[in-house]
C-alpha cells in the first residue's frame, strides 16, 4: 500500500528522521508511537507529501509521491489532523463536502452524488444530525468526527491520523478508536495513526512502529513491540508492562519517582 524507503528529513538543523524505512500492507491498522520530538508527525507529513524528504522516497501503490500531482495524491490518501480552528462561518456539511474537492474540477459545484457520499460519511460518523449546524459551535469530539467524515468523503483507501485523540476525553477516545477499527475492518480502509497514547495504540492497532530519534526502533504486533525493554529503552522511564485481562493486549503502567535523569 504505502512504503517509506530510507527517508531522511531535516528542517534546518539536525536530522529529524534518519534512513527510516517501513512498509504498510493494504488493510493494516498501524500505530506510530514514540517520545516527543522523535519525528512522528514529521513522518506523517512526509507520507502525504506535505513536505518532501531530502533523501529517500515514499511510494504509494508502487508510485513515487514526487511523481504525482497534489490532486492525484489526494485521491489516494486522506488525512485527519488535530483539531483546527476555522475563523469563518461554515456549516459541518460544507466541511464534509470539502472532502469531495479532489473529485471536482475548477469551479464545479458539488452534485447529487457528492451530497449522497457526504451524507453517508456523516451517518457513519454519527454527525449527520449536526450537518447544518455551524462548525465552530460543535464540541471538540464532534469536530473530530466531522473531520473523519470529510476524510471518508474523499473516498481513499488510506487514511492518516495525526494524534486524533489528543484533545479528547476517554469516552471520545474510545468512540474514535472504535470508529477507526470499524473503518478498517468493515470498509477495508488502511489506517495509519500517530498516537501519544501507547495503551490506546496497543489496544486497537494491528501493528505498531516504535520510533526513537528519527529511526524505527521496533516494528511488529503490539505484543512484540510494547515490551518492558523496548519502552524503557526508548522513553528512558521505568514502566510496568502487563496484559489487559480482557483483551490480553499489552498494557503499560507508569511507575512514579524512578525516572532516570
Amino acid at each position, binding site marked *: 500500500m504505502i512504503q517509506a524507503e530510507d527517508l531522511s528529513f531535516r528542517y534546518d538543523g539536525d536530522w529529524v528522521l534518519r534512513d527510516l524505512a517501513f512498509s504498510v500492507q493494504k488493510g493494516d491498522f498501524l500505530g506510530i508511537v514514540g517520545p516527543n520530538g522523535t519525528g512522528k508527525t514529521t513522518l506523517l507529513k512526509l507520507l502525504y507529501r506535505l513536505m518532501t524528504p531530502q533523501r529517500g522516497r515514499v511510494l504509494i501503490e508502487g508510485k513515487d509521491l514526487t511523481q504525482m*500531482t*497534489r490532486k492525484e495524491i489526494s485521491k489516494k490518501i486522506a488525512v485527519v489532523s488535530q483539531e*483546527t480552528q476555522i475563523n469563518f*462561518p461554515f456549516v459541518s*456539511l460544507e466541511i464534509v463536502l*470539502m472532502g469531495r474537492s479532489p473529485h471536482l474540477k475548477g*469551479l464545479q459545484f458539488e452534485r447529487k452524488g457528492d451530497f449522497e457520499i457526504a451524507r453517508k460519511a456523516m451517518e457513519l460518523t454519527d454527525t449527520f444530525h449536526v450537518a447544518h449546524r455551524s462548525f465552530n459551535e460543535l464540541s471538540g469530539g464532534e469536530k473530530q468526527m466531522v473531520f473523519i467524515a470529510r476524510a471518508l468523503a474523499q473516498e481513499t483507501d488510506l487514511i492518516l491520523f495525526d494524534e486524533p485523540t489528543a484533545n479528547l476525553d476517554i469516552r471520545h477516545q474510545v468512540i474514535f478508536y472504535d470508529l477507526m477499527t470499524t473503518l478498517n475492518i468493515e470498509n477495508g480502509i488502511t489506517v495509519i495513526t500517530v498516537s501519544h497514547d501507547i495503551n490506546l495504540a496497543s489496544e486497537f492497532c494491528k501493528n505498531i512502529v516504535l520510533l526513537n530519534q528519527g529511526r524505527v526502533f521496533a516494528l511488529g504486533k503490539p505484543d512484540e513491540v510494547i515490551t518492558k525493554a523496548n519502552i524503557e529503552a526508548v522513553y528512558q522511564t521505568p514502566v510496568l508492562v502487563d496484559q489487559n485481562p480482557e483483551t490480553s493486549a499489552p498494557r503499560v503502567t507508569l511507575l512514579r519517582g524512578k525516572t532516570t535523569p
Partner: protein
Amino acid sequence: MIATLRKFLAVNVILLFALLLIMLICLSFGTVRIGLSDVFRALVSGLRDGDPGGGQGYFTIILSIRLPRILLAAVVGGALSVAGSIFQALLRNPLADPYILGVSSGSAVGAVLAMMLGLAATSLGLPLASFLGAIGTVLIVFNVGRMGRRVHTNTLLLAGVIINAFFGAVLMFLISISKTEALHSIIFWLMGDFSFADYRGLTLASPYVLTGALLAYFLARRLNLIVAGEDEASQLGVDVERVKKYAYALASLITAAAVSVCGLIGFVGLMIPHMIRLILGSDHRLLIPAAALWGAGFLVICDTLARSILAPMELPVGVVTAAFGAPFFIYLLKTRSM
C-alpha cells in the same frame, strides 16, 4: 448556506437586478433632481445616438456627468469588495481589508507626488503614478514577507504593517512640504474622490478590475479550502503556495486599479464581504460574485449621498462609507463573536 448552482444563479440574478435599479435611481439624484422618466429618455437617446450631442441640458448631466461617475463607483465598489474577500480568505482573517499589504500608502505616495509635481494635470499622470506606487509597494511587502519560496501569513502581515508605517511617514513628509493649494485635492484623494470621474477613468480601471476579478473567481473553490486550513487544503489536492501567489497578485492588481482612479475609500472592502457572509455563508463561489455586485451597489449609494447631502457642496465618499462602516462593525462586535 450550502452552495449549489441554482443558488448561485438566483443570488446573482437578484443582486444584478438590484444593482441596475440602484444605478437608475441614483442617476436621478444630485444637485439637480431629474425625474426617472427623463433619466430613461436620456439613457435611451444616449444608447441610440451614442452621443448626447446638443440635446436638452439634463441629457448632458445624466450622460456625461452622472453616468460615468456612477459606473465608476460601481466598478470601484465591486473591485474593493472582491479584493477584500480574497485578502480575508488568504490571511484567514475576517478583518483583513484590501489595503493590508500597503496598496493604500504606496498609491497615496504615488498620487501625492504626481499632484505636487504637476503631473496630475495630464490625463494619465495621477492614475498611473498611484497605480505604480501601489504595485511597487505590494512587491516590496511581498518580498520582505516571503521566506524562501513560501509565504507565511504572519510575516507578510508584519511586513505590511512596517512598510505601511514607513510610507505613511513619507506621505506626511510630502504633505507637510506641499503648497496649500494642493492640500485640498490631496485630502479629498486620501478619503476617496469621484468628482473627477469620467469615461476615461472608467476605461482605464475597468479592464484590470474585470479581468482580475474574473480570474480570481476561478480560485474560489480552492480559497474555501485554504480558509479551512492550509495544510488541510494541500491534503485535499490544492497547490496552496501557487493559489496564494495568484490570489495575492490578482487582489492587489484589482485594488491598485480601483485606487488609481478614485483614491482611498475605506470600509467597503472590509464590510461588504462580512455582510454577504452573514447572509450567504463563507463559500467563495457564492461570496465573490455576490460581494462584487452588492459592493458595487453600495458604493454607488454612498457616492450619491456624498454628492447630494450637502449639494452643491461635495463630501469625500470615504466619509460616507465610514459613517456606515464604523457603526456596522461596532454592531458586529457587540452582537456576535467574529
